[in-house]
């Protein structure tokens, strides 16, 4: 398998990397080591760590930071941007449709079963249209690159995608450590993201809100692995970070307890899952949520971002239909490719996948974080056979995809700089307008040859640059 190298074309350094390449070549070894230590120290001081569920070990472990940025030219980025925004529009149109008349299902373009029997489909919100018809306000689109002009979407994250704090911190730390790089290169800023997010949230204030909307971030608490990000974003946006117990319903509205008495809350950016939002509507045993919240929501007294039920759009089985959504709702051809996907509940697909298991990537339909997946070409025969048994036991729980030849980016390694595989998660904001900050989170598989970029599986992060014209 050959891989697209984002910096090198043969021996020639591609234009966007020209200055960076010089920078690396002239960097003394001890300076690099000193800077790496400095970066780690900065991350630790800021407190940005990432706990990984089910892994044990140090919960306050740092995600490794690679100082070598990843660079996009303006033209490359514009195309990605158009593709991502197109997808975001289609996904929100889909959500509005399936919680309304279900035209795409009536038209026979998506099987009814996949939508209405989906665990993430919330019948409690059928018929309610949230402000501006937006259900998913922050969409994290996971992309990989396989050639100069070939990008594939791996998955859409429509609920509460995490990781944007890394996009911001990586940039902050790079600017602090290497200010000269930012003078030599014209790099589009990303630090407007928190204000754009706040604007997005305010723009979807509920019907009954008649002054500047009060927004809050609702966190499950400091035991959550993304708690740092919740407090980080609250801080940068200038909004309160609250837990369920800080909010209460009184009459037609939701209020937050403050030292000056109750304050009405208009928009809740929630980082807790649907089943825990409101014990009167979902799980009766939830201690994290706010009793009565859903009644207030469904009567236009408060907005919840993302909207309860938005998860039905980012299920791995629904994913295969996103190009169809683009055509159906927008009447456009999809700009970004989907990865070919075999769904194991179909007999033909099942046979193909079982015959070609060592060449494929197999994922759980509801899995995330790189858990419970098989990367055929990187697995031993024994691992493949163990996974085969798991699939046989419950085929409808899996999808399979070809092993993509993920592009590589130059990355600092023990012996200098070497190519490592990367992916990209930009964060698309949907409110009164659709916004995409030029950048995103680049994850890098630090182990040589590895194609798994998840931080739980030895992945690291990089700053992601988009160059101005």
């Amino acid at each position, binding site marked *: 398998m050959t891989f697209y190298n984002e910096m090198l074309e043969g021996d020639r350094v591609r234009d966007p990397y020209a200055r960076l390449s010089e920078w690396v070549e002239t960097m003394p070894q001890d300076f690099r080591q000193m800077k790496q230590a400095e970066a780690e120290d900065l991350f630790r001081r800021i407190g940005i760590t990432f706990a990984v569920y089910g892994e044990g070990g140090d919960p306050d472990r740092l995600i490794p930071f690679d100082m070598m940025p990843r660079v996009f030219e303006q033209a490359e980025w514009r195309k990605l941007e158009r593709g991502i925004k197109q997808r975001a529009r289609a996904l929100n149109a889909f959500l509005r449709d399936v919680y309304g008349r279900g035209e795409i299902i009536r038209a026979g373009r998506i099987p009814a079963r996949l939508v209405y029997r989906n665990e993430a489909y919330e019948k409690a919100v059928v018929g309610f249209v949230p402000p501006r018809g937006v259900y998913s306000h922050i969409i994290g689109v996971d992309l990989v690159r396989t050639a100069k002009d070939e990008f594939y979407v791996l998955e859409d994250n429509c609920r509460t995608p995490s990781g944007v704090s890394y996009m911001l911190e990586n940039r902050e730390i790079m600017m602090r450590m290497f200010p000269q790089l930012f003078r030599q290169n014209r790099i589009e800023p990303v630090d407007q993201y928190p204000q754009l997010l706040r604007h997005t949230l305010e723009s979807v204030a509920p019907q009954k809100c008649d002054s500047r909307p009060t927004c809050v971030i609702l966190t499950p608490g400091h035991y959550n692995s993304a708690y740092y990000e919740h407090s980080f974003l609250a801080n940068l946006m200038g909004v309160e970070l609250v837990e369920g117990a800080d909010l209460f319903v009184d009459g037609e509205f939701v209020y937050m307890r403050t030292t000056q008495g109750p304050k009405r809350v208009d928009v809740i950016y929630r980082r807790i899952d649907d089943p825990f939002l409101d014990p009167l509507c979902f799980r009766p045993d939830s201690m994290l949520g706010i009793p009565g919240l859903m009644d207030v929501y*469904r009567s236009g007294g408060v907005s919840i971002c993302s909207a309860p039920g938005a998860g039905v759009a980012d299920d791995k089985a629904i994913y295969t239909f996103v190009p169809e959504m683009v055509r159906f709702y927008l009447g456009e051809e999809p700009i970004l490719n989907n990865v070919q996907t075999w769904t194991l509940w179909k007999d033909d697909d099942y046979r193909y996948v079982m015959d070609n298991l060592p060449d494929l990537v197999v994922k759980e339909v509801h899995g995330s974080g790189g858990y419970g997946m098989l990367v055929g070409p990187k697995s031993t025969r024994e691992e493949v056979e163990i996974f085969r048994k798991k699939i046989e036991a419950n085929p409808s729980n899996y999808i399979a995809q070809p092993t993509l030849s993920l592009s590589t980016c130059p990355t600092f390694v023990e012996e200098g700089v070497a190519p490592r595989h990367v992916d990209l998660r930009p964060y698309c904001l949907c409110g009164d307008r659709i916004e995409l900050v030029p950048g995103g989170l680049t994850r890098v598989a630090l182990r040589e040859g590895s194609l798994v970029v998840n931080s739980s599986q030895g992945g690291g992060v990089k700053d992601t640059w988009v160059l101005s014209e």
Partner: protein
Amino acid sequence: MKLRISHETTYGYDMPIRNLVQSLRLTPSVFEGQKTHEWLIEVTNGLKGPGFRDGAGDWVEGWTVRGPVQEITVRTSGHIETRDTAGVLRGHREIIHPLAYLRDTKPTAPDEALRELAHSVDGSTDDALDLSHRLSSAVTDAIAFRPGVTEAHTTAAEALALGEGVCQDHSHALIALARLRGLPARYVSGYLHSTLDGQPHDAAHAWAEIHVGGLGWVGFDAANRCCPDERYVRLGSGLDSSDAAPIRGVAMGSGAERLDVAVHVEEIAQ
């Protein structure tokens, strides 16, 4: 049939509670079988919150009570005219797709015995109405009506194993069987005016609805081996008893809660 209904639920607390939030589905459904002439919902010291019609066609009302209080009464009363539609929920406006009622929740999750019972019943989904009747009879035969042996959290599987239960258990069991046969099914809460045997009855009642192609939702009362008629008053529906509960609430406080329910359904003389 013209019915006068009064329904009082009183919550008493050992220690005063700080605050109470409720979501009520206590308003009769709107369909051909029911016409509501007067209906009132009151919560003592309560602040009426939002009211709206949800995707299932139910009228939902939020209420909050600011504490400290030690006792709260939810009181509904009104009168309503009913008509026999042979169990068919005709003229009911709802937009949730029937397939959304195929998923199981804890009280309706099938075990081996439920599976066996479901598949022992003759009939096919080609004639879903006939199959539904047969499934309903199978539940009536398998679970004898007997109050006091099951409680609020008893599952369909447990009730079937016991062979006894009340309308909630019959409904959960029928829902489980219907879904096992591929028919969307749901739990309905409401009232029943019962004079047949002269015995005092708990007039709060529950039954199941099964989605039958061509007809829509059809009610089946396995506890009484019949379909709902003019003696039945429909309030709301859900995946199971808790999802369809007329009153869902959370009180902020410590200490035990006592519950007292009084329901009266009387026929108004012509």
